[in-house]
Protein backbone atom coordinates (compact mmCIF):
# COMPACT_ATOMS: atom_id res chain seq x y z
CA UNK A 1 0.00 0.00 0.00
CA UNK A 2 3.05 2.25 -0.20
CA UNK A 3 1.82 3.49 -3.57
CA UNK A 4 -1.33 4.87 -1.93
CA UNK A 5 0.44 6.79 0.84
CA UNK A 6 3.09 7.93 -1.64
CA UNK A 7 0.37 9.32 -3.90
CA UNK A 8 -1.88 10.84 -1.22
CA UNK A 9 1.12 12.13 0.69
CA UNK A 10 2.30 14.45 -2.11
CA UNK A 11 1.15 18.05 -2.44
CA UNK A 12 -1.29 17.09 -5.21
CA UNK A 13 -2.53 14.11 -3.18
CA UNK A 14 -3.27 16.31 -0.18
CA UNK A 15 -5.04 18.78 -2.43
CA UNK A 16 -7.15 15.91 -3.79
CA UNK A 17 -8.24 15.18 -0.23
CA UNK A 18 -9.16 18.85 0.21
CA UNK A 19 -11.10 18.85 -3.08
CA UNK A 20 -13.09 15.66 -2.44
CA UNK A 21 -13.96 16.48 1.16
CA UNK A 22 -14.73 20.07 0.14
CA UNK A 23 -17.12 18.91 -2.59
CA UNK A 24 -18.81 16.60 -0.08
CA UNK A 25 -19.35 19.62 2.19
CA UNK A 26 -20.86 21.54 -0.73
CA UNK A 27 -23.30 18.65 -1.11
CA UNK A 28 -23.99 18.74 2.62
CA UNK A 29 -24.64 22.50 2.46
CA UNK A 30 -27.30 21.90 -0.21
CA UNK A 31 -29.08 19.26 1.89
CA UNK A 32 -28.74 21.39 5.04
CA UNK A 33 -30.12 24.45 3.25
CA UNK A 34 -33.09 22.56 1.79
CA UNK A 35 -33.88 21.30 5.29
CA UNK A 36 -33.55 24.74 6.83
CA UNK A 37 -35.83 26.33 4.24
CA UNK A 38 -38.75 24.33 5.72
CA UNK A 39 -38.66 26.90 8.55
CA UNK A 40 -40.43 29.30 6.20
CA UNK A 41 -43.34 26.81 6.27
CA UNK A 42 -43.91 27.64 9.94
CA UNK A 43 -43.30 26.01 13.29
CA UNK A 44 -45.22 22.78 12.70
CA UNK A 45 -43.86 22.21 9.21
CA UNK A 46 -40.30 22.69 10.46
CA UNK A 47 -40.76 20.40 13.49
CA UNK A 48 -42.33 17.77 11.22
CA UNK A 49 -39.25 17.93 9.01
CA UNK A 50 -37.01 17.51 12.09
CA UNK A 51 -39.04 14.51 13.27
CA UNK A 52 -38.91 13.00 9.81
CA UNK A 53 -35.13 13.42 9.75
CA UNK A 54 -34.76 11.86 13.20
CA UNK A 55 -36.93 8.91 12.15
CA UNK A 56 -33.97 7.66 10.11
CA UNK A 57 -32.32 6.81 13.46
CA UNK A 58 -28.98 5.03 13.02
CA UNK A 59 -28.59 6.36 9.47
CA UNK A 60 -28.32 9.86 10.94
CA UNK A 61 -25.58 8.68 13.30
CA UNK A 62 -23.69 7.17 10.37
CA UNK A 63 -24.07 10.42 8.41
CA UNK A 64 -22.78 12.38 11.42
CA UNK A 65 -19.75 10.11 11.70
CA UNK A 66 -19.03 10.49 7.98
CA UNK A 67 -19.28 14.28 8.28
CA UNK A 68 -16.99 14.27 11.31
CA UNK A 69 -14.43 12.16 9.43
CA UNK A 70 -14.62 14.42 6.37
CA UNK A 71 -14.21 17.47 8.63
CA UNK A 72 -11.17 15.94 10.35
CA UNK A 73 -9.54 15.19 6.98
CA UNK A 74 -10.35 18.65 5.57
CA UNK A 75 -9.14 20.54 8.65
CA UNK A 76 -5.99 18.48 9.25
CA UNK A 77 -4.92 18.41 5.59
CA UNK A 78 -5.72 22.10 5.24
CA UNK A 79 -3.59 22.90 8.28
CA UNK A 80 -0.66 20.85 6.94
CA UNK A 81 -0.91 22.61 3.55
CA UNK A 82 -1.19 26.05 5.21
CA UNK A 83 1.97 25.62 7.26
CA UNK A 84 3.74 23.99 4.32
CA UNK A 85 2.94 27.06 2.23
CA UNK A 86 4.17 29.46 4.92
CA UNK A 87 7.36 27.41 5.11
CA UNK A 88 7.86 27.55 1.32
CA UNK A 89 8.57 31.29 1.52
CA UNK A 90 10.54 31.96 4.72
CA UNK A 91 11.43 35.50 3.65
CA UNK A 92 8.42 37.55 2.57
CA UNK A 93 8.33 40.33 -0.01
CA UNK A 94 8.54 43.94 1.18
CA UNK A 95 5.99 44.93 -1.47
CA UNK A 96 3.12 42.57 -2.24
CA UNK A 97 0.90 43.20 -5.21
CA UNK A 98 -1.57 40.95 -6.99
CA UNK A 99 -1.33 40.46 -10.74
CA UNK A 100 -5.11 40.09 -10.77
CA UNK A 101 -5.33 36.35 -10.23
CA UNK A 102 -6.30 36.30 -6.56
CA UNK A 103 -9.85 36.84 -5.34
CA UNK A 104 -11.15 37.60 -1.84
CA UNK A 105 -12.04 33.93 -1.62
CA UNK A 106 -8.75 32.48 -2.82
CA UNK A 107 -6.54 34.74 -0.72
CA UNK A 108 -8.43 34.11 2.52
CA UNK A 109 -9.09 30.35 2.27
CA UNK A 110 -7.11 29.24 5.37
CA UNK A 111 -8.50 32.09 7.48
CA UNK A 112 -12.14 31.72 6.44
CA UNK A 113 -11.68 27.97 6.92
CA UNK A 114 -10.41 28.44 10.48
CA UNK A 115 -13.24 30.86 11.32
CA UNK A 116 -15.73 28.34 9.90
CA UNK A 117 -14.30 25.66 12.19
CA UNK A 118 -14.84 27.94 15.20
CA UNK A 119 -18.34 28.73 13.98
CA UNK A 120 -19.24 25.06 13.43
CA UNK A 121 -18.14 24.17 16.98
CA UNK A 122 -20.22 27.10 18.29
CA UNK A 123 -23.14 26.10 16.07
CA UNK A 124 -23.07 22.47 17.26
CA UNK A 125 -23.07 23.49 20.93
CA UNK A 126 -25.75 26.02 20.13
CA UNK A 127 -28.22 23.67 18.41
CA UNK A 128 -27.00 20.09 18.20
CA UNK A 129 -25.97 19.66 21.84
CA UNK A 130 -28.77 21.89 23.15
CA UNK A 131 -31.48 20.54 25.46
CA UNK A 132 -33.74 18.52 23.13
CA UNK A 133 -35.87 17.02 25.92
CA UNK A 134 -37.88 20.02 27.03
CA UNK A 135 -38.04 22.09 23.84
CA UNK A 136 -38.66 21.51 20.15
CA UNK A 137 -35.97 22.34 17.60
CA UNK A 138 -38.07 25.27 16.42
CA UNK A 139 -38.04 26.68 19.95
CA UNK A 140 -34.27 26.30 20.16
CA UNK A 141 -33.92 28.19 16.88
CA UNK A 142 -36.50 30.82 17.83
CA UNK A 143 -34.89 31.42 21.24
CA UNK A 144 -31.43 31.77 19.73
CA UNK A 145 -32.45 34.14 16.96
CA UNK A 146 -34.52 36.30 19.29
CA UNK A 147 -31.16 37.70 20.40
CA UNK A 148 -29.41 40.28 18.22
CA UNK A 149 -25.96 38.85 19.05
CA UNK A 150 -26.82 35.43 17.68
CA UNK A 151 -28.36 36.87 14.53
CA UNK A 152 -25.20 38.93 13.97
CA UNK A 153 -22.82 35.99 14.53
CA UNK A 154 -24.79 33.75 12.17
CA UNK A 155 -24.98 36.34 9.40
CA UNK A 156 -21.25 37.06 9.61
CA UNK A 157 -20.57 33.31 9.62
CA UNK A 158 -22.67 32.83 6.49
CA UNK A 159 -20.77 35.60 4.71
CA UNK A 160 -17.55 33.80 5.64
CA UNK A 161 -18.93 30.49 4.35
CA UNK A 162 -19.95 32.16 1.08
CA UNK A 163 -16.46 33.65 0.63
CA UNK A 164 -14.83 30.26 1.32
CA UNK A 165 -17.12 28.43 -1.10
CA UNK A 166 -16.76 31.10 -3.82
CA UNK A 167 -13.18 29.88 -4.36
CA UNK A 168 -13.59 26.36 -3.02
CA UNK A 169 -16.04 24.94 -5.53
CA UNK A 170 -14.16 25.97 -8.66
CA UNK A 171 -10.82 25.19 -7.04
CA UNK A 172 -11.94 21.64 -6.22
CA UNK A 173 -12.77 20.98 -9.86
CA UNK A 174 -9.40 22.38 -10.98
CA UNK A 175 -7.59 20.18 -8.43
CA UNK A 176 -9.43 17.05 -9.53
CA UNK A 177 -8.26 17.92 -13.03
CA UNK A 178 -11.69 18.79 -14.39
CA UNK A 179 -10.67 21.70 -16.58
CA UNK A 180 -12.20 22.13 -20.00
CA UNK A 181 -12.58 25.18 -22.24
CA UNK A 182 -16.31 24.47 -22.59
CA UNK A 183 -17.14 23.74 -18.95
CA UNK A 184 -14.64 25.66 -16.80
CA UNK A 185 -16.31 29.07 -17.30
CA UNK A 186 -19.62 27.40 -16.37
CA UNK A 187 -18.10 25.81 -13.25
CA UNK A 188 -16.63 29.19 -12.21
CA UNK A 189 -20.03 30.84 -12.68
CA UNK A 190 -21.82 28.08 -10.79
CA UNK A 191 -19.25 28.45 -7.98
CA UNK A 192 -20.04 32.14 -7.54
CA UNK A 193 -23.81 31.56 -7.87
CA UNK A 194 -23.59 28.70 -5.38
CA UNK A 195 -21.78 30.84 -2.82
CA UNK A 196 -24.36 33.62 -3.19
CA UNK A 197 -27.25 31.15 -2.82
CA UNK A 198 -25.64 29.57 0.25
CA UNK A 199 -24.89 32.97 1.82
CA UNK A 200 -28.35 34.41 1.21
CA UNK A 201 -30.22 31.14 1.75
CA UNK A 202 -28.75 30.51 5.21
CA UNK A 203 -28.16 34.17 6.09
CA UNK A 204 -31.80 35.25 5.80
CA UNK A 205 -33.11 32.58 8.16
CA UNK A 206 -31.85 34.32 11.36
CA UNK A 207 -33.28 37.62 10.08
CA UNK A 208 -36.62 35.95 9.30
CA UNK A 209 -36.82 34.33 12.73
CA UNK A 210 -35.76 37.59 14.43
CA UNK A 211 -38.53 39.55 12.72
CA UNK A 212 -41.43 37.15 13.48
Amino acid at each position, binding site marked *: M*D*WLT*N*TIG*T*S*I*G*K*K*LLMAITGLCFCGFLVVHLIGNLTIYGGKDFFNAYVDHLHSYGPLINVAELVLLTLAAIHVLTGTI*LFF*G*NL*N*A*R*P*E*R*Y*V*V*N*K*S*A*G*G*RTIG*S*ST*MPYTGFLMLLFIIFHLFNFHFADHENQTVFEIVANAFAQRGYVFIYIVAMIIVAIHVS*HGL*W*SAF*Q*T*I*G*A*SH*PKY*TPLIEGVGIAFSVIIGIGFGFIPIFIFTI
Partner: protein
Amino acid sequence: MTTAKTINLELKVWRQKGPKDRGKLEIYDAKEISTDMSFLEMLDVVNEQLTLEGKDPIAFDHDCREGICGMCGTVVNGRAHGPEKGTTLCQLHMRHFSDGDTIVIEPWRARAFKVIKDLAVDRSAFDTLIQAGGYVSVNAGGAQDANCIPIPQEVAEKAMDAAACIGCGACVAACPNASAMLFVSAKVSQLALLPQGKPEAAQRALSMVRTMDELGFGNCTNETECEAECPKEISITNIARLNREFFKAGFFSSVE
Protein backbone atom coordinates in the same frame (compact mmCIF):
# COMPACT_ATOMS: atom_id res chain seq x y z
CA MET B 1 2.87 55.22 -20.45
CA THR B 2 5.02 58.32 -20.27
CA THR B 3 5.85 60.38 -23.34
CA ALA B 4 8.84 62.11 -21.69
CA LYS B 5 12.28 61.46 -23.20
CA THR B 6 13.97 60.94 -19.87
CA ILE B 7 12.75 60.30 -16.34
CA ASN B 8 14.27 60.39 -12.84
CA LEU B 9 13.53 57.55 -10.48
CA GLU B 10 14.16 56.52 -6.91
CA LEU B 11 15.16 52.86 -6.65
CA LYS B 12 14.87 50.76 -3.51
CA VAL B 13 17.01 47.74 -4.33
CA TRP B 14 17.47 44.57 -2.29
CA ARG B 15 21.18 44.33 -1.45
CA GLN B 16 22.50 41.10 0.04
CA LYS B 17 26.21 40.26 0.11
CA GLY B 18 25.71 36.49 -0.02
CA PRO B 19 23.33 33.63 0.79
CA LYS B 20 24.02 33.95 4.54
CA ASP B 21 23.76 37.75 4.69
CA ARG B 22 20.47 39.15 6.02
CA GLY B 23 20.16 41.78 3.29
CA LYS B 24 18.22 45.04 3.19
CA LEU B 25 16.70 47.55 0.80
CA GLU B 26 19.02 50.39 -0.22
CA ILE B 27 18.01 53.60 -1.93
CA TYR B 28 19.59 54.79 -5.18
CA ASP B 29 18.77 57.62 -7.57
CA ALA B 30 18.44 56.75 -11.24
CA LYS B 31 18.80 60.06 -13.06
CA GLU B 32 18.14 60.97 -16.70
CA ILE B 33 16.91 57.50 -17.60
CA SER B 34 15.88 57.27 -21.26
CA THR B 35 12.33 55.96 -21.58
CA ASP B 36 13.49 53.82 -24.52
CA MET B 37 15.74 51.82 -22.20
CA SER B 38 14.79 48.38 -20.96
CA PHE B 39 14.61 47.80 -17.22
CA LEU B 40 17.94 45.96 -17.33
CA GLU B 41 19.59 48.81 -19.26
CA MET B 42 18.37 51.15 -16.54
CA LEU B 43 20.06 48.90 -13.96
CA ASP B 44 23.22 48.95 -16.15
CA VAL B 45 23.25 52.76 -15.96
CA VAL B 46 22.84 52.69 -12.18
CA ASN B 47 25.62 50.08 -11.93
CA GLU B 48 28.00 52.23 -14.03
CA GLN B 49 27.39 55.09 -11.65
CA LEU B 50 27.94 52.83 -8.62
CA THR B 51 31.19 51.53 -10.15
CA LEU B 52 32.42 55.08 -10.75
CA GLU B 53 31.66 55.88 -7.13
CA GLY B 54 33.74 52.87 -6.08
CA LYS B 55 30.69 50.99 -4.80
CA ASP B 56 29.69 47.38 -5.42
CA PRO B 57 27.36 47.20 -8.45
CA ILE B 58 23.96 45.51 -8.09
CA ALA B 59 24.13 41.83 -9.05
CA PHE B 60 21.22 40.71 -11.25
CA ASP B 61 20.59 37.78 -13.59
CA HIS B 62 20.37 38.35 -17.34
CA ASP B 63 21.50 36.75 -20.57
CA CYS B 64 19.81 37.07 -23.97
CA ARG B 65 17.87 40.27 -23.22
CA GLU B 66 15.41 39.21 -25.93
CA GLY B 67 12.79 37.65 -23.65
CA ILE B 68 13.53 34.07 -24.64
CA CYS B 69 16.23 32.69 -22.34
CA GLY B 70 14.46 32.86 -18.97
CA MET B 71 17.51 34.13 -17.13
CA CYS B 72 16.35 37.59 -16.02
CA GLY B 73 13.69 38.37 -13.51
CA THR B 74 13.15 40.37 -10.35
CA VAL B 75 10.07 41.44 -8.45
CA VAL B 76 9.32 45.07 -9.35
CA ASN B 77 6.93 46.86 -7.00
CA GLY B 78 5.54 43.50 -5.90
CA ARG B 79 5.09 42.16 -9.45
CA ALA B 80 7.26 39.44 -10.99
CA HIS B 81 8.91 40.86 -14.15
CA GLY B 82 7.17 44.19 -13.46
CA PRO B 83 3.69 45.48 -14.20
CA GLU B 84 3.36 44.59 -17.91
CA LYS B 85 1.52 41.42 -18.96
CA GLY B 86 3.34 38.65 -20.80
CA THR B 87 6.70 40.41 -20.52
CA THR B 88 10.10 39.41 -19.19
CA LEU B 89 12.05 42.00 -17.23
CA CYS B 90 14.45 42.59 -20.15
CA GLN B 91 11.49 43.43 -22.39
CA LEU B 92 9.96 45.84 -19.87
CA HIS B 93 10.69 49.37 -21.03
CA MET B 94 11.13 52.43 -18.86
CA ARG B 95 8.34 54.27 -20.74
CA HIS B 96 5.97 52.27 -18.52
CA PHE B 97 7.21 54.29 -15.54
CA SER B 98 6.68 57.98 -14.74
CA ASP B 99 9.07 60.71 -13.67
CA GLY B 100 9.58 60.65 -9.90
CA ASP B 101 8.40 57.05 -9.43
CA THR B 102 9.79 54.95 -6.60
CA ILE B 103 10.58 51.42 -7.74
CA VAL B 104 11.15 48.63 -5.21
CA ILE B 105 13.25 45.83 -6.70
CA GLU B 106 13.43 42.48 -4.87
CA PRO B 107 14.73 39.03 -5.81
CA TRP B 108 12.46 35.99 -6.41
CA ARG B 109 11.61 34.73 -2.93
CA ALA B 110 11.11 31.04 -2.18
CA ARG B 111 12.70 28.45 0.08
CA ALA B 112 13.71 26.51 -3.04
CA PHE B 113 15.30 29.62 -4.64
CA LYS B 114 18.20 30.87 -2.50
CA VAL B 115 19.50 34.39 -3.04
CA ILE B 116 23.10 34.19 -4.28
CA LYS B 117 23.74 37.91 -4.21
CA ASP B 118 21.46 40.97 -4.35
CA LEU B 119 18.88 40.13 -7.05
CA ALA B 120 20.62 37.00 -8.40
CA VAL B 121 18.83 33.83 -7.35
CA ASP B 122 19.86 30.17 -7.50
CA ARG B 123 17.22 28.42 -9.61
CA SER B 124 19.01 25.09 -9.90
CA ALA B 125 15.94 23.55 -8.22
CA PHE B 126 14.34 23.84 -11.69
CA ASP B 127 17.26 21.89 -13.19
CA THR B 128 16.73 19.19 -10.55
CA LEU B 129 13.04 19.09 -11.54
CA ILE B 130 13.89 18.74 -15.23
CA GLN B 131 16.30 15.90 -14.40
CA ALA B 132 13.55 14.22 -12.36
CA GLY B 133 11.41 14.34 -15.51
CA GLY B 134 13.73 11.77 -17.09
CA TYR B 135 13.90 11.06 -20.80
CA VAL B 136 11.74 10.43 -23.86
CA SER B 137 12.26 7.28 -25.90
CA VAL B 138 13.45 8.00 -29.43
CA ASN B 139 13.55 5.17 -31.98
CA ALA B 140 16.96 4.57 -33.49
CA GLY B 141 17.37 3.56 -37.15
CA GLY B 142 16.16 5.18 -40.32
CA ALA B 143 14.28 8.44 -40.02
CA GLN B 144 10.49 8.12 -40.02
CA ASP B 145 8.42 9.75 -42.73
CA ALA B 146 7.22 13.17 -41.73
CA ASN B 147 3.69 13.27 -40.31
CA CYS B 148 3.46 9.48 -40.03
CA ILE B 149 2.11 9.88 -36.50
CA PRO B 150 -1.10 11.89 -36.92
CA ILE B 151 -1.36 14.61 -34.25
CA PRO B 152 -4.31 17.02 -34.41
CA GLN B 153 -3.20 20.59 -34.92
CA GLU B 154 -5.07 21.65 -31.77
CA VAL B 155 -3.08 19.18 -29.66
CA ALA B 156 0.21 20.19 -31.25
CA GLU B 157 -0.63 23.84 -30.44
CA LYS B 158 -1.38 23.00 -26.81
CA ALA B 159 1.93 21.15 -26.50
CA MET B 160 3.70 24.09 -28.11
CA ASP B 161 2.00 26.56 -25.74
CA ALA B 162 3.25 24.51 -22.78
CA ALA B 163 6.71 24.25 -24.33
CA ALA B 164 6.88 28.06 -24.47
CA CYS B 165 7.92 27.98 -20.78
CA ILE B 166 11.38 29.52 -20.43
CA GLY B 167 11.86 28.38 -16.83
CA CYS B 168 12.38 31.90 -15.45
CA GLY B 169 10.71 31.12 -12.12
CA ALA B 170 8.22 34.00 -12.18
CA CYS B 171 5.41 31.52 -11.40
CA VAL B 172 7.14 30.53 -8.16
CA ALA B 173 7.95 34.16 -7.36
CA ALA B 174 4.36 35.30 -7.97
CA CYS B 175 2.66 32.38 -6.25
CA PRO B 176 1.50 33.34 -2.73
CA ASN B 177 2.61 29.81 -1.72
CA ALA B 178 5.87 29.71 -3.73
CA SER B 179 4.53 26.70 -5.62
CA ALA B 180 6.22 25.41 -8.78
CA MET B 181 3.07 23.82 -10.17
CA LEU B 182 2.87 25.98 -13.31
CA PHE B 183 6.47 25.17 -14.26
CA VAL B 184 6.11 21.43 -13.58
CA SER B 185 2.72 21.33 -15.31
CA ALA B 186 4.14 23.00 -18.42
CA LYS B 187 7.00 20.50 -18.62
CA VAL B 188 4.72 17.50 -17.97
CA SER B 189 2.09 18.77 -20.41
CA GLN B 190 4.37 19.43 -23.36
CA LEU B 191 5.41 15.77 -23.31
CA ALA B 192 2.17 14.16 -22.10
CA LEU B 193 0.20 15.73 -24.96
CA LEU B 194 2.33 14.17 -27.68
CA PRO B 195 2.73 10.48 -28.55
CA GLN B 196 6.51 10.78 -28.21
CA GLY B 197 6.19 11.55 -24.50
CA LYS B 198 3.53 8.97 -23.67
CA PRO B 199 5.65 5.87 -22.81
CA GLU B 200 7.30 7.59 -19.82
CA ALA B 201 4.34 9.83 -18.88
CA ALA B 202 3.42 8.03 -15.64
CA GLN B 203 6.97 7.84 -14.33
CA ARG B 204 7.58 11.46 -15.29
CA ALA B 205 4.49 12.81 -13.50
CA LEU B 206 5.18 10.89 -10.27
CA SER B 207 8.86 11.67 -10.20
CA MET B 208 8.53 15.39 -10.95
CA VAL B 209 5.76 15.94 -8.38
CA ARG B 210 7.66 14.09 -5.64
CA THR B 211 10.85 16.02 -6.45
CA MET B 212 8.90 19.29 -6.44
CA ASP B 213 7.73 18.54 -2.88
CA GLU B 214 11.21 17.47 -1.73
CA LEU B 215 12.74 20.71 -3.03
CA GLY B 216 10.55 22.73 -0.67
CA PHE B 217 8.16 24.38 -3.11
CA GLY B 218 4.71 25.20 -1.72
CA ASN B 219 1.32 23.73 -2.56
CA CYS B 220 -0.89 25.15 -5.29
CA THR B 221 -4.11 26.71 -3.98
CA ASN B 222 -5.37 27.80 -7.41
CA GLU B 223 -4.76 31.49 -6.77
CA THR B 224 -3.94 31.83 -10.52
CA GLU B 225 -1.31 34.52 -9.86
CA CYS B 226 1.23 32.39 -11.78
CA GLU B 227 -0.84 32.45 -14.96
CA ALA B 228 -1.27 36.23 -14.66
CA GLU B 229 2.49 36.82 -14.20
CA CYS B 230 3.96 34.23 -16.59
CA PRO B 231 5.90 36.09 -19.32
CA LYS B 232 4.91 33.31 -21.74
CA GLU B 233 1.28 33.34 -20.52
CA ILE B 234 1.24 29.61 -19.75
CA SER B 235 -2.31 28.62 -18.80
CA ILE B 236 -3.32 26.95 -15.55
CA THR B 237 -5.21 24.38 -17.63
CA ASN B 238 -1.76 22.77 -17.68
CA ILE B 239 -1.97 22.47 -13.87
CA ALA B 240 -5.28 20.61 -14.21
CA ARG B 241 -3.59 18.37 -16.81
CA LEU B 242 -0.67 17.73 -14.43
CA ASN B 243 -3.19 16.77 -11.72
CA ARG B 244 -4.87 14.32 -14.14
CA GLU B 245 -1.52 12.88 -15.24
CA PHE B 246 -0.49 12.50 -11.60
CA PHE B 247 -3.71 10.74 -10.56
CA LYS B 248 -3.54 8.46 -13.63
CA ALA B 249 0.03 7.58 -12.73
CA GLY B 250 -0.49 7.28 -8.97
CA PHE B 251 -3.78 5.40 -8.92
CA PHE B 252 -4.09 3.57 -12.24
CA SER B 253 -0.62 2.86 -13.61
CA SER B 254 1.66 0.05 -12.47
CA VAL B 255 4.50 2.54 -11.87
CA GLU B 256 5.35 2.73 -8.14
